[in-house]
């Protein structure tokens, strides 16, 4: 097992130059994600045109794994339908907890570089946080936390 594998060039590159980093003026869905254990905090904002995510952005303070995960996530779901995004969210979560057979059919593509975090139990939450937050945003939940059960529907607001 090579732990270094999680810090692969793709991930380091997305950490250095995160895609879709910033805020979105005309967002109609957004959520704030927080991992109280390590202090990672990111906000995901998106513009849903009908069922399609036509714009998405994120920003916040986080470790490299979280930031790269957010960057690659936004790059991946942009232009996709809400249902397609939910499929990715589900598959990504399954992958990082070791419940997804990467040899079988899936839609993750290059996101599979995050498979290595399943061997780093303390870092799984870092990788998953952006996806939790996207899920919350899509479902009009303002806050997502890695420390609440399910997807932490606490305060529901909608823009």
């Amino acid at each position, binding site marked *: 097992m090579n*732990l*270094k594998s*999680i810090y692969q060039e793709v991930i380091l590159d997305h*950490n250095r130059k995160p895609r879709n980093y910033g805020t979105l003026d005309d967002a109609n869905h957004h959520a704030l994600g927080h991992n109280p254990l*390590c*202090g990672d905090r990111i906000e995901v904002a998106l513009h849903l045109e009908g069922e399609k995510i036509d714009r998405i952005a994120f920003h916040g303070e*986080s470790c490299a794994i979280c930031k790269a995960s957010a960057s690659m996530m936004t790059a991946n779901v942009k232009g996709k339908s809400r249902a397609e995004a939910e499929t990715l969210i589900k598959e990504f979560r399954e992958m990082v907890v070791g419940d997804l057979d990467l040899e079988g059919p899936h839609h993750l593509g290059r996101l599979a570089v995050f498979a290595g975090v399943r061997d780093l139990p303390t870092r799984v939450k870092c990788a998953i946080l952006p996806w939790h937050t996207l899920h919350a945003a899509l479902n009009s939940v303002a806050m997502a936390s890695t420390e609440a059960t399910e997807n932490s529907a606490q305060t529901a607001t909608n823009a």
Partner: protein
Amino acid sequence: MKIVDALLNTNTFSPSELATRYRADFPILDICVNDKSLVYLDNAASSQMPQQVIDRLVRYQTAQHANIHRAVHYLSEVATHEYETARRSLQHFINAREDREIIFTSGTTESINLVMHGYGRKFIQQDDEIILTNLEHHSNIVPWQMLAEEKGARIRVVPINDAGELLIEEYEKLFNSRTRFVAITHVSNALGTINPIKNMIAFAHMKGVPVLVDGAQAAAHIKIDVQDLDCDFYAFSAHKMCGPTGVGILYGKAHLLESMQPFKGGGDMIASVTFEKTTYNTIPYKFEAGTPPIAAAIGFGSAIEYLSKIGMDTIAAYEHELLSYATEQLEGMPGVRIIGNTRTKVAVISFTIEGVHPHDVGTLLNQEGIAVRTGHHCAQPIMQRYNIPATSRASFAFYNTKAEVDALVAGIQSVQKVFS
């Protein structure tokens, strides 16, 4: 072998030989992590246990175990004797006047909660004030907040400067006619700062205010004399000083402990019980309800004897040398910033690496077999003070070597390379 023997036969040796001399007592330090020799630099979270203490636990469990203070049979007498001997070891270790001033608890956290319930709930009222500092661990903040909320009392906080030192003038200004209690840490777990508690206690006493000292980070590194400090309460945990988890102590001045209400009700803490009325036992038993962690307490006593044999002054001298070396090495590294650089510190170095989040630092160092802690160290107010989300913290014990400091430096360089 010869060299080691030579060292063992002399009483005077340079502090720099300390780790070489005692390291072999710690079997866990020989393990490999990710195919690298373990470099254990997370001693502030929990230290490791020497074979002598492990053996003591085995001996207790194989030949001395029974419940204590309850039966006339042989094993109960032996276990009671050993448990009370451990209490006396702790009494001597911190130079308490009497052994009944030592209460076994589950650890520092419980010790502080005991004082909050036993003293605070009885003597602190609405509009009273409790002084804490910006350097406290959450376990010396949250209980007092709970009390303040319950009573309508107020928390006042002593600020720090950029070096991580308490502003003593500000501390003195916080006192007024409503000040009822001071709870301060002896040593900051996040930064390593040693606070000038003796003077702070003297000042509080001048104002008639009792002081609790959180000694969790001090007891393994500094010689503690509670009579000299004149503190009213002093708390620490065994697992940070070569002992087992699940046990710690609260030292309290006898007359204060006697004035307090019990914290937990149950067996052993009573003198007599009828359904009409219960009379409480005398101290320390009044605060030791139920079956205590007997084995852990005896292991604690053994750890204290182990440390005392080396000598706390010797340990402090060596760790200081190690800290100076580590500080020098890390200060020289571009992009590395040490958080908290007072001159009066224990061997703890909190640091950040430019452009790398502490959690990535922790994961990458672990890959090199190096254990450090990353995060807010249960001291979020300190992180807020420096406006950083977290730090990486290397915390040393007397069994750490300069070679391990070098390994840390090399580890940090490899982290910087990954992120370059």
